[in-house]
């Protein structure tokens, strides 16, 4: 039996009241509910306050570069398809610096899970506008307010026919934990964009702001209908839907390459006989 204690209990560098604490709690609950042992899971993260999250879990961790968590996660999954690979990083890291990797991973539909701590601001570097910051959002760096249009990751993911797209809220821990579990169990790429307050640097999108707007999708909502999902994904402002927005059963990248599914690459020594055959074919 896996218990919460297996994943450890660490002192964090996060502010009191930060949404990261709740996301970490939801993540631990999900891992334990799925009975995943720490050694069966690999967390990959980039840079940012969110990217520190894996350091607060007793598991396999690769804490790499800003925006580059998805390439590392992709490589790890290809080398060992038996691992549960989970990427955890922030909105700036994944949608800004890592934007192209986000698109490529959706297209490939590789079987990894992406958890994005989305607080609509760069918190680690003390409050610059991020890709999901609202137009008009005022920061020390953008004193006249953000001019650019915000990136809606959920809408983009649905538009790209991502195979699992969900939005959670750090204020609803059990709901979020359920989403994370479903995402991890989903075969193919899964995105959970998690709205969370940054108590220090985002005084607009606060806990109360999200709490007032976030509503869970009704039970009869059909997440397999892409057309209605697109409409739902674009809903933002006074009301923000949370839950599984869209889901499909697209073919998974690994299944297309049988050698990947034969187990960890490191367990398979180079096939010298095959290599000899290639050499002989040129004789």
């Amino acid at each position: 039996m896996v218990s919460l204690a297996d994943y450890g209990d660490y002192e964090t560098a996060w502010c009191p009241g930060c949404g990261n604490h709740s996301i970490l709690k939801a993540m631990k609950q999900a891992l334990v509910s799925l009975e995943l042992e720490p050694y069966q899971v690999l967390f990959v993260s980039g840079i940012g306050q969110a990217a520190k999250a894996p350091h607060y879990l007793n598991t396999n961790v690769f804490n790499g570069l800003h925006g580059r968590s998805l390439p590392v996660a992709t490589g790890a999954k290809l080398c060992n398809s038996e691992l549960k690979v989970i990427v955890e990083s922030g909105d700036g890291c994944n949608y800004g610096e890592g934007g192209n990797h986000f698109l490529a991973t959706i297209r490939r539909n590789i079987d990894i899970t992406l958890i994005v701590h989305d607080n609509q601001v760069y918190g680690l570097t003390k409050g610059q506008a991020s890709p999901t910051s609202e137009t008009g959002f005022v920061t020390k760096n953008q004193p006249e307010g953000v001019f650019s249009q915000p990136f809606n990751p959920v809408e983009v993911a649905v538009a790209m026919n991502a195979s699992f797209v969900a939005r959670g809220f750090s204020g609803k821990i059990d709901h979020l934990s359920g989403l994370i579990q479903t995402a991890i169990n989903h075969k193919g790429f899964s995105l959970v964009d998690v709205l969370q307050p940054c108590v220090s640097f985002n005084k607009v999108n606060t806990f109360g702001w999200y709490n007032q707007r976030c509503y869970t999708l009704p039970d009869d909502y059909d997440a397999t209908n892409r057309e209605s999902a697109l409409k739902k994904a674009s809903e933002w402002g006074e009301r923000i839907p949370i839950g599984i927005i869209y889901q499909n059963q697209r073919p998974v990248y690994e299944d297309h390459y049988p050698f990947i599914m034969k187990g960890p690459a490191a367990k398979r020594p180079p096939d010298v006989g095959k290599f000899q055959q290639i050499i002989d074919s040129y004789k």
Partner: protein
Amino acid sequence: MTETVSLAGMTETPIVIVVAQRPGPSTGLPTRTEQGDLEFVLHSGHGEFPRAIFAPGDVEQAFHLTRMAFEVAQKYNTPVFILTDQFLADSYRSVKPFDLDELKPIDPCAISSVAADPHLTYLLTDSGISPRIFPGMSSWCVKAFSSQELVVADSDEHTQDGHLSEDLSVRVSMVEKRLRKLDGIKHYLVNPEFTGDREPDLLFVCWGSTRGSTIEAAERLRGKGRLVATLHFPQVWPLAAGGFLGKLMSAQETVAVESNATGQFARLIRRETGFHIKRTILRYDGLPITPEYILARI
């Protein structure tokens, strides 16, 4: 590329990178050849960490040095380069079949023979090499590890267990640990290949793909009665003066033959050994160096 190189240096991830040089800067001459990126590859990635750079001179060397590159990368958990160029990378040539019997597969288990319990990704050792295990592979290499060991790797400076740290003494010990690996890498040095007269009047010094043209130019000069030799470097980093300095000093005149505008390798040799190769034959118009090109400048 550079951020990956630096990341691999810090996370101690074995990686082999093939750089096929073309004339820059920027898009430059994208379908032509040059050896202009030696200094770039030598210094690519911020921070200080060990690396090795192989520079194959022909197809056979490309085969064997690539295998060695993987061996060095896996053993020392650091980036290793194959520095070639468009000329060699796009070449086709018939070669004798490679003898695979002599090439044993590299066994990562053997490399990770010493382990701490629990596993420490960045265990401090005399050699600087920390045992490496693979996440999630519970029943593999178990002779040294318990079945559920965890791997924690970090691009931030880190403690032995892989978690980020700004402790000053941790920083110093980790910098020194990483750099210690260079001493071991020096055991894998491929000595430069010397051909021609033992005490030449003229010694050509070259690296990488200019090997064939330089050796041929030297042969033609010997045919005319001159005492000429060639020193070709299939590995350009790290350099150990003991392997070649005597050769350089035995020649009356040394000439560096390189496909670049500034004689980067000659400069590197001077930096590492103090030996000044005063004459250079350089080509940087995008075409490969030919024997005729060299002979016209002698």
